[in-house]
């Protein structure tokens, strides 16, 4: 009885604690709210709206918003509400694939560099620095233009993933180097733990907020890159991602013909995605790098 009561009390403290924390970290609060809104739009939209209308020739052509098509339709006969629902999902999927793989590989590479030290570390550091100097989008343009016509949202995600691990690797290496000398890691070694176990058991849990921040940042970067490629016409030709919608809109002269709804839909959706990710990143940064916190408070 009392146990349950106590536990309930703890939950309540947890909730108010979170609420109080969010009040102090408004960018995280707004970012999470926006992100939740987007998820709701995707999930709710998939349930409540007929997403097959995102296919070409499934709706009347180039209509402004109406009750039947709240976001209007494009010149290919796609319903833009359906396109936004599907497109947001596809764009996030690309980001998740690239960001997820990027952080996992980056963490492995970063920990390896920090733990191996010496030549291995120097080699990894040089490689990441070299790759980071070249804007990822430029490499991706070369790859994507060579694969033009054969790209799907999945291969797009994988392609970007190949260039998403460097930034996390560098950050995680720096963090691991700090943690490697931490007295509690030394104590773990004295307690008989070895490399991998120390990384997984002693370091990783303390790096979770940091990894989270890394992931969201990588996700945002990946979406940025994918939308950029798609706007150049280098995306999946038959999947209505947000970036491809921008490309089609430009190619079919929506500007000259004054189809403002076709211009507005992908731009608004993309802005919401980018702003949400930016705010969440800024908020998580405040948790992961307490030095920053002091700066803001001071």
């Amino acid at each position: 009885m009392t146990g349950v009561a106590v536990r309930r009390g703890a939950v309540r403290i947890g909730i108010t604690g979170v609420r109080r924390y969010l009040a102090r970290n408004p960018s995280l609060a707004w970012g999470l709210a926006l992100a939740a809104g987007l998820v709701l739009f995707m999930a709710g939209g998939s349930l409540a709206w007929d997403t097959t209308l995102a296919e070409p020739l499934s709706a009347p052509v180039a209509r402004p918003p109406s009750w039947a098509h709240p976001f209007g339709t494009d010149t290919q006969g796609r319903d833009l509400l359906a396109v936004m629902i599907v497109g947001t999902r596809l764009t996030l999927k690309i980001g998740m694939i690239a960001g997820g793989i990027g952080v996992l590989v980056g963490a492995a590479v970063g920990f390896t560099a920090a733990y191996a030290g010496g030549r291995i570390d120097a080699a990894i550091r040089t490689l990441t620095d070299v790759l980071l100097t070249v804007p990822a989008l430029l490499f991706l343009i070369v790859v994507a233009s060579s694969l033009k016509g054969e790209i799907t949202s999945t291969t797009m995600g994988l392609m970007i993933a190949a260039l998403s691990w460097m930034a996390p690797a560098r950050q995680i290496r720096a963090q691991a180097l700090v943690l490697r000398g931490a007295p509690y890691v030394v104590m773990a070694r004295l307690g008989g733990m070895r490399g991998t176990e120390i990384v997984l058991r002693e370091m990783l849990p303390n790096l979770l907020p940091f990894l989270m921040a890394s992931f969201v940042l990588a996700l945002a970067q990946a979406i940025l890159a994918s939308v950029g490629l798609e706007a150049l016409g280098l995306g999946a030709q038959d999947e209505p991602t947000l970036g491809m919608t921008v490309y089609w809109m430009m190619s079919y002269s929506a500007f000259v013909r004054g189809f403002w709804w076709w211009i507005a839909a992908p731009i608004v959706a993309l802005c919401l995605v980018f702003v949400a990710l930016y705010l969440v990143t800024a908020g998580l940064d405040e948790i992961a790098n307490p030095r920053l916190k002091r700066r803001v408070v001071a």
Partner: protein
Amino acid sequence: MAHRLEIDGVRRVFPGRAFGGPSVVALHGLSLTLDGARPEIVAVVGESGSGKSTLAQIALGLDDPSAGTVRFDGTSLGRMDEGGRVRFRRAVQAVLQDPFSSFNPFYRVEHAAILALVRFGLAPDRRAARSILADACEAVGLNPADTLGRFPHELSGGQRQRLMVARAMAMRPAVLVADEPVSMVDASLRATILAHLAAMRDAQGVSIIYVTHDLTTAYQVADRLIVLYRGHVVETGTPEEVLKAPAHPYTRLLVDSVPWPDLARPWGRVPKVADGAPVADGCPFRGRCPDATAVCARMPGPAVLSPTRTVRCHLHRSPPA
């Protein structure tokens, strides 16, 4: 069985940065033997940069010497097989300086200790390990009910450091490396913690390397003193010998800088030379030494002043046998 840790002619050089930075010699050939048959507390005294922490790392097997060997029960650490390494790991434990970061903030305070006790076979399971740890807590004056099961941030610095000592006791090591164990603890608790270390020597037969910059606490607990300056052992002896009549000019400076509670004892008589330029070879102290002469360009060998006492300074020579 009594274990034996031998640090033999250990030298540690940290290479400079990739493009031709100067390398730093942290230890110039240091030897120290701890024999389990005669447990003792050896204080290693020196200022920051003296190499005392490097020595602690090497004694713990966390860092490898550039030259010289560390032997445990006669086997060099570098040549140990898996079993030997585990035995060494178990037998040589540590209390570190910073009680605040010695505990993983993600886990409850007993996490690392219980894991180690089970891993080294000192307890059959976690429950047994916990009770061993609880006993050790009581031995250092901590109430296990108030301490175990809490997160590090819920304990004070003094509680945490005593818990570190309790962990060390529970591990029943042969050698304990205490690296500045009381420098970050409230003055009121220092004596207690040092007393627990002395108790480990007396009751468990643990040999202790007590690394410190503080001569007074070394004087209180140590059986033997090693004074380090920039990686060189400049003087060794019993605390009585060294503190009553410091032989090396650096030790004299150290002793003179201690604000002794005796008001009659004057303070700061030794003339101080402002930090001289670091010297490449020869006696490292000669830039700051009031007695420096041309002969100091070469580091003299140790002069044996008594069976327990050595000093490396041109002012002293071994008496003829």
